[in-house]
């Protein structure tokens, strides 16, 4: 099943490093995204980041810079708006998402018509891991470190405020500051995975491994570790399968993103089946 030359191939190694970084960060941040009920915000940030990604093709700059810049701006807008009411939060998120995708449509149109880079649309929306330039690795590691540092620093306040914002504030936690730090970490995580598996599919890497981990773990640390492990398994497994697929249908391989998202789904289904058994016993 292993095609020859897997670990000596330059683009494959870049994909392993960048995809691995995206999987680790998404795995960590995703656990908190689900606990805080902000999956929709995560998806919206990814869609908005695609405006930055598509603009970077026009400007000829590092695409990760584009994805990250746009996601951080949108996160700041969403973080500073006081959104205690879940309905209002969803509305604002939806509006920001719509505006972002409008810009994406504009930039991609220019990409395709004026630059004749027809592949840009596929790359931005659905990712193309084997065409990521190796020069992106240092910035990837920086973005990943930033997101992980934000979560590590705010770990306990994040947990209490996921339990209840009121209980957090009684202890003196400034839930708005914590919420802002979290949403910035979320924007970095989402930009990274948008860069690797595409803006549209990045939600799968953010939510899927974390959701599977939450089915199995009953402690926050365990959930984070499991989520990272599942994310890495899906990402690296997907890269391997995509590399092999060049030999299944000679001439053209299958997209990595397809394999990653499919593996994430399989892990989630397996975790649901595994996780439901002991609980059913406990509740009777």
């Amino acid at each position: 099943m292993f095609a020859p030359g897997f670990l000596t191939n330059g683009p494959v190694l870049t994909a392993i490093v960048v995809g691995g970084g995206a999987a680790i960060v998404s795995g960590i941040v995703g656990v908190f995204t689900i606990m805080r009920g902000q999956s929709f915000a995560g998806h919206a940030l990814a869609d908005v980041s695609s405006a930055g990604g598509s603009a970077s093709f026009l400007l000829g700059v590092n695409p990760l810079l584009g994805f990250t810049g746009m996601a951080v701006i949108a996160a700041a807008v969403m973080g500073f708006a006081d959104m205690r009411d879940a309905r209002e939060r969803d509305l604002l998120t939806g509006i920001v998402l719509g505006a972002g995708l409008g810009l994406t449509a504009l930039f991609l149109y220019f990409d395709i018509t004026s630059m004749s880079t027809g592949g840009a649309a596929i790359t931005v929306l659905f990712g193309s891991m084997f065409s990521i330039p190796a020069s992106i690795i240092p910035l990837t590691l920086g973005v990943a470190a930033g997101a992980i540092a934000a979560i590590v620093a705010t770990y306990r306040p994040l947990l209490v405020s996921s339990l209840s914002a009121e209980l957090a504030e009684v202890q003196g936690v400034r839930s708005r500051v914590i919420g802002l730090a979290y949403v910035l970490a979320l924007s970095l995580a989402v930009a990274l995975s948008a860069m690797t598996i595409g803006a549209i599919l990045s939600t799968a890497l953010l939510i899927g491994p974390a959701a599977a981990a939450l089915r199995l773990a009953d402690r926050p640390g365990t959930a984070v570790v499991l989520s990272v492990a599942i994310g890495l398994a899906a990402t690296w497994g997907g890269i391997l399968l995509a590399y092999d697929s060049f030999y299944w249908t000679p001439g053209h391989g299958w997209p990595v993103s397809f394999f990653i998202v499919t593996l994430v789904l399989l892990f989630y289904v397996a975790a649901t089946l595994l996780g439901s058994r002991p609980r059913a016993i406990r509740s009777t």
Partner: protein
Amino acid sequence: MTISPEALVVDHLSVRLAGRMIFEDVGFTLARGGFCGLIGANGSGKTTLLRAILGFTKPASGEVRIGAAGASRGSAPVGYVPQKILLDPQLPLRARDVVALGLDGRRLGLPLPSRTRDARVDEMLDAVGAADFAGQRIGDLSGGQQQRILLAHALVRRPQLLLLDEPLANLDVRSAAEIVALLRQLCDAYQVAVLLSAHDMNPLLAHMDRIVYLANGHAASGKTDEVVRTDVLSRLYGHPIDVVHVRDRIVVMAQ
């Protein structure tokens, strides 16, 4: 450290929400180790008063002082048990994790293993009678069990003041009596002042040594038999009220 005898001073407090006066000129004090019922009908402003004490609602006038200094939120520990928390059953937190978060949830950085912290958490789990289910996910526990865990979460920092919003609202008569007896016991053991709201004072009668009675936008406070009287409550409500003692229960009704 000088210990102020008063754990809570509410001084001429008025709160207005969306232009409507909720209550006016409410004043009472609560000593350490005191057990006080905050009694009033639905909509009388009990939750608003608790939120004003916690600093969640800014008063129109008057002030709240907690502990020795006129301390603000966070600096002087105040324990709070909200009426209802929507707990996602998938929350990856065991009951004991929730108690530990009551101790150091405001701290930055990852929690390092600490025997002192574990000991304090264990002690508090024992104190609320939750040692048996400490290892289970918080979302898998029954409502009564969750309440005990939230109580331990609130008390683990050893606050001088503990506020509970309608802790008896969803409990049957026996569980309510158990919780009241437990609160009285914790109140004595930790010398914490307990203020709990309830729409029915009867489950509290055996244990509470003070009462704050909210009605008609005003409050009367003092010992139970000083406040729950025909003349005092008639003045508070602004119309004639009968206070009837039936065996060991008290019934308050309009004439």
